[in-house]
């Protein structure tokens, strides 16, 4: 007799379930969504944010009369295959497409986050918070950061600043943990690409290349509405950037494949929300909806990897480990909510005069710093400085250093900021970060601030 494959799987599942003895009660069965995100109100907020984004995408589809997905006719497929390496030369009419959301929309959601059990009344004696984030997550202060980031102390050499510093030789035995430790003091330019790939366990095996080729075939066969958003985002951000415009074609290739990669669903294991119901009948999509600036997650990597499947696999791993936390709501210490709170706390504790002044003139610091943090500073720092920052994200397996840098930037420009009298002029003081050297800023902020 013959079973249809899927029914066979269902039967097996049920069989195993009934025969498996009850789990011993030594670890009470926490539901899977609790393991991903223990706080109920955070799960709810993330689910409702996702719903909002999807709804926005669906209305865009209806308004513009563009289907969420469509199969390309053969002639179009051929044309796309031919100009695969120069998609940037295309100038489709994207005027009617707008990004589904921008970072500032997401910031409003985070500002509105509330724990229903939190007593926010002013009479409460707990240290009052001047900032915008109102959820009491545990974030580290400078003494704790000094212990955790001891390799960044003022007496320890950093690559890029102290290139004569004595640094242990690179371990060539493909030791991922050692590479991570090494990366804490910065990677030398020639070694960075290999070190990052080692840390991320992205070895470009034949199956990775094949997976990438399958994805490119998918791009050629089907056109997604999201593709237009990607085109628009690349055109608006990376293509306008002096450092990244040369990589325009690479960015299209990587991002179009990424939006079809269901393996990215894996990352939802760590994200609190379950994958939303597919709105594309039978079409495989990663369900990561790009927002304005999303392509900047990929752009800096183009300096390190020129082989598309390798570039793709490193980007995907970076997204799954780090970048997704910058645009989802969770209680994770690397999540954007914690980073925002940490930034505000660091500023309030160590630069109270500045924070108070900015608040008085209607320039809440987070409103300026948020866009930097959401993109992990990509597009705001010069590329060599950005890569040094991302070395530390990988080295410490945490995005905390992004919040620390944001506070350090405010500390660095504090004198000028004390003079300004409006949000606009505060923005102007902090508009250009391209000349900043990140490691001295972070080192001085962490290790030279009086406490």
């Amino acid at each position, binding site marked *: *007799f*013959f*079973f*249809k*494959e*899927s*029914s066979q*799987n*269902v*039967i097996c*599942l*049920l*069989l195993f379930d*009934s*025969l498996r*003895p*009850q789990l*011993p*009660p*030594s*670890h*009470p*069965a*926490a539901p899977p969504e*609790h393991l991903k995100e*223990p*706080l*109920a109100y955070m799960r709810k907020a993330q689910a409702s944010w996702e719903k909002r984004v999807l709804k926005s995408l669906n209305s865009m589809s209806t308004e513009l009369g563009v289907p969420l997905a469509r199969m390309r006719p053969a002639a179009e497929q051929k044309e796309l295959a031919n100009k695969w390496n120069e998609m940037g030369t295309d100038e489709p009419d994207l005027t009617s497409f707008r990004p589904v959301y921008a970072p500032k929309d997401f910031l409003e959601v985070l500002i509105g986050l509330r*724990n229903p*059990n*939190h*007593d926010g009344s002013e009479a*409460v*004696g*707990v240290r009052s918070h001047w900032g915008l984030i109102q*959820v*009491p*997550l*545990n974030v580290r202060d400078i003494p704790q950061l000094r212990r955790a980031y001891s390799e960044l102390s003022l007496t320890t050499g950093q690559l890029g600043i102290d290139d004569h510093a004595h640094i242990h030789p690179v371990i060539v035995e493909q030791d991922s943990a050692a590479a991570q430790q090494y990366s804490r003091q910065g990677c030398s330019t020639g070694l960075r690409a290999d070190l990052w790939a080692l840390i991320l366990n992205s070895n470009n095996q034949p199956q990775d290349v094949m997976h990438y080729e399958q994805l490119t075939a998918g791009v050629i066969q089907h056109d997604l509405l999201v593709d237009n958003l990607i085109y628009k985002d690349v055109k608006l951000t990376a293509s306008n950037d002096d450092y990244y415009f040369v990589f325009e074609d690479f960015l299209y290739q990587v991002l179009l494949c990424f939006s079809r990669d*269901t393996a990215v*669903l894996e990352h939802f294991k760590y994200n609190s929300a*379950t*994958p939303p*119901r*597919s709105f*594309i*009948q*039978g*079409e495989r999509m990663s369900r990561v909806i790009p927002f304005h600036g999303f392509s900047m997650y990929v752009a800096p990597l183009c300096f390190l990897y020129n082989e598309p499947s390798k570039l793709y696999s490193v980007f995907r791993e970076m997204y799954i480990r780090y970048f997704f936390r910058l645009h989802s709501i969770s*209680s994770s210490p690397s999540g954007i909510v914690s980073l925002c709170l940490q930034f505000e706390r660091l500023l309030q504790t160590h630069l109270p005069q500045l924070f108070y002044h900015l608040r008085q003139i209607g320039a809440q610091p987070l409103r300026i710093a948020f866009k930097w943090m959401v993109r992990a500073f990509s597009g705001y720092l010069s590329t060599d400085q950005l890569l040094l920052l991302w070395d530390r994200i990988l080295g410490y397996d945490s995005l905390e250093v992004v919040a620390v840098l944001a506070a350090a930037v405010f500390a660095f420009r504090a004198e000028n900021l004390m003079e300004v009298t409006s949000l606009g002029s505060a923005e102007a003081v902090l508009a250009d970060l391209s000349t900043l050297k990140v490691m001295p800023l972070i080192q001085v902020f962490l290790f030279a601030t009086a406490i």
Partner: protein
Amino acid sequence: MSGEDVQPVSCSIKPPVYLQMGDSETGAAPSGVCVVDVALPFGKPVNIQEITFKNYYTAYVTVRLLRKSPGQEGPAKWCTALRDLPLMDNPHTEAGSQDYCSVHRAQMQVEPDHVTSVRLILRQPSSAWLTFSLEEVNIFPHVEPNPEKEVSDWLSDLTLVDQHPDLEGLPDPQTVSSSIQQMWALTEVMQTNQTTASIGRYDVDGCYDINLLSLT
């Protein structure tokens, strides 16, 4: 763990009592201390294996047990099994506030045997929270594993068709066989109702959400 199908003891959890400081005249204030009494079935003292619960913003929990020594006359005595177990890293911040926890007998300072009542004393010193409690409190009894069960006994059980074998952790064969029969019937139904439409792995309405798995 032995993997046995252990059910929690049916107990009655009294409503939590939040202790107040001061009196109603001068104005009672919350003290940050709450007492939850869990009464075990009357006349059936329990040897406790484990106490499990879900936290809701409690910072520390103390477990007290009312034990009656068997055979000895005299009243049951209270003792402290665990004092101020921290459930939250920092009483003022979220970490641990909604976690699932368990307290095993090995963690307790006294043998949790012949217990007739359990008292949980919850503390939450931070004023950041409106309320705090524990939810889904379950008490699992200690079950002695049968030491005489050897492989030869198990094999000889198999050959005695008419006897009811001593099931150690295995589900009832009748239940399993009837569920398998039901599933078999289902597969027969599905075979006869085959369509050419692709079902797709775990697909329902084009959705990949395994929680929406359905057989219809």
